């Protein structure tokens, strides 16, 4: 089986049917895409000015966009972004590192894999937000509360991908490694790691998005400082224009995270056939 067939949670059931598409003049999609965004803003503006919703509750983009750009000049806006991203970065790093270690150890042993299967399948679907009360009780509105939730959610996401990856090691390669009498570390480095990496990167990319959603969610509910808390404050203070501008900012942040993770994935897998575009 080709390793290029990995993506998302359905790692083992994922088609990748590459069909060379004839590029309809490179500019076309960009112009159309820009038109789409303009159209959305126009609809929003009209909806807000003429629509059924009170413009106080749904301010038009002509008010929200200037506020969005003004925010860039405020220090506390950047501080809030930094706080959210700090929780995101620490949580993601801890989750990925621990999931890789645990995943490689469990995945390398048939016995451990079978013995832990039921437990992992039970713990994994538990929504991390269910733990928000525990985090709030243990830590209050502190960074640790956010980390607890982020690490819990991302750990399982990455762990499952790592397990898929370790299971996908080619049998011939495995036997070759045996014949060459590689020890555990050598096998991890030369055999498991290259097979694992595409799966791992998929897991990390998904976890990065989830971590941001949860960081903001915890800030919203528990009141840990960050972007989510600022939105909640804006809502309480009836500063609706500000609230919408912060939500726009969170969207930009989300896109940035997604973009950066995609670039990292492509760079780290430059040797892999799914990136090189070769057919398996």
């Amino acid at each position: 089986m080709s390793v290029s067939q990995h993506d998302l949670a359905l790692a083992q059931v994922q088609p990748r049917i590459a069909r060379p598409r004839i590029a309809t003049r490179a500019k076309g999609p960009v112009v159309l895409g820009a038109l789409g965004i303009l159209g959305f803003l126009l609809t929003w503006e009209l909806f807000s000015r003429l629509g059924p919703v009170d413009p106080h509750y749904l301010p038009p983009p002509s008010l929200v966009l200037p506020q969005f750009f003004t925010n860039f000049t405020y220090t506390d806006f950047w501080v809030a972004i930094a706080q959210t991203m700090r929780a995101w970065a620490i949580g993601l790093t801890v989750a990925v590192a621990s999931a890789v270690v645990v995943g490689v150890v469990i995945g390398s042993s048939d016995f451990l894999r079978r013995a832990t299967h039921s437990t992992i399948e039970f713990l994994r679907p538990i929504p991390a937000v269910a733990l928000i009360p525990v985090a709030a009780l243990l830590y209050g509105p502190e960074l640790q509360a956010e980390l607890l939730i982020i690490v819990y959610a991302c750990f399982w996401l990455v762990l499952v991908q790592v397990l898929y990856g370790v299971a996908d090691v080619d049998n011939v390669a495995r036997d070759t490694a045996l014949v060459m009498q590689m020890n555990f570390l050598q096998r991890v480095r030369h055999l498991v790691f290259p097979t694992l990496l595409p799966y791992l990167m998929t897991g990390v990319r998904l976890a990065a998005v989830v971590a941001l959603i949860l960081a903001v969610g915890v800030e919203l509910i528990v009141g840990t400082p960050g972007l989510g808390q600022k939105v909640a404050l804006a809502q309480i203070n009836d500063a609706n224009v500000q609230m919408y501008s912060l939500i726009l900012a969170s969207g930009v942040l989300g896109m940035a995270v997604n973009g950066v993770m995609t670039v990292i994935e492509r760079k780290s897998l430059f040797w892999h056939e799914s990136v090189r575009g070769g057919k398996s």
Partner: protein
Amino acid sequence: MNALKSLLHFVVLPVLLIALWWFTTRDGANFFVPQPGPLVDAFVEVWLGEGFRNDVVPSVARLFAALAISIALGISLGVLIGSVEWVRSLLSPMLEFVRAVPSTIIIPVLLLVIGINDTMKVTLIVLGCIWPVLLNTVKGVASIDGVQVDTGRVYGLSGLVRLRYLVLPAAAPQIFAGIRQSLAVGLVLMVTSEMFASTDGIGYATINFQNRIAIPEMWSGIVLLGLIGVAMSVLFQIVQSRVLGWYVGLKESAK
């Protein structure tokens, strides 16, 4: 013998973990961690009586309604957007942006525009869940194998027949990957919306117990949410193996 072995593999670790939990909390040393016995008592008392009608039913009903809407809407819009190239180019950047907004942050907005009621929660869950289904459908529909498309054309498939026998089956694996993501997101949003602003629901009840420092009751809510998560995951796998059985079989034989 083999069946016994796999049964052992299935139960040994969970049993060990529960035993460890019971053993470490037997003198009730840690205030934050309840003992298994009281936790089970709290679970039965809180969720199987009044709480079932007042909190569990509304929560689950909202979740399922929202998921049904998201899946139906996501697939139909996705097929539409995926089949027409200029519509796809027009909407893709927009959709990518809306999807990138962390869905939890929309809660205050909906609170404002709609208020604290069922519509707000269902809308929120739909707004969060529709994207994985929609975007995966678009991707799946846009990348149908060229040979299949041509074969369909030769056979003169068009309209609903083409949709039923060519487009949907070809996109199904992608769509299911999307639905699976949606289920997880839906549960997260259900809980978050109830914790942030609600008058009923499992999330509301659980955060309420936390505020009243009712530790075993709070944990019982978490256990319930976990059980719902597990149940949804099992249900999904059953449906998937029914609908996608042919595909998994195909993959196995291609190995």
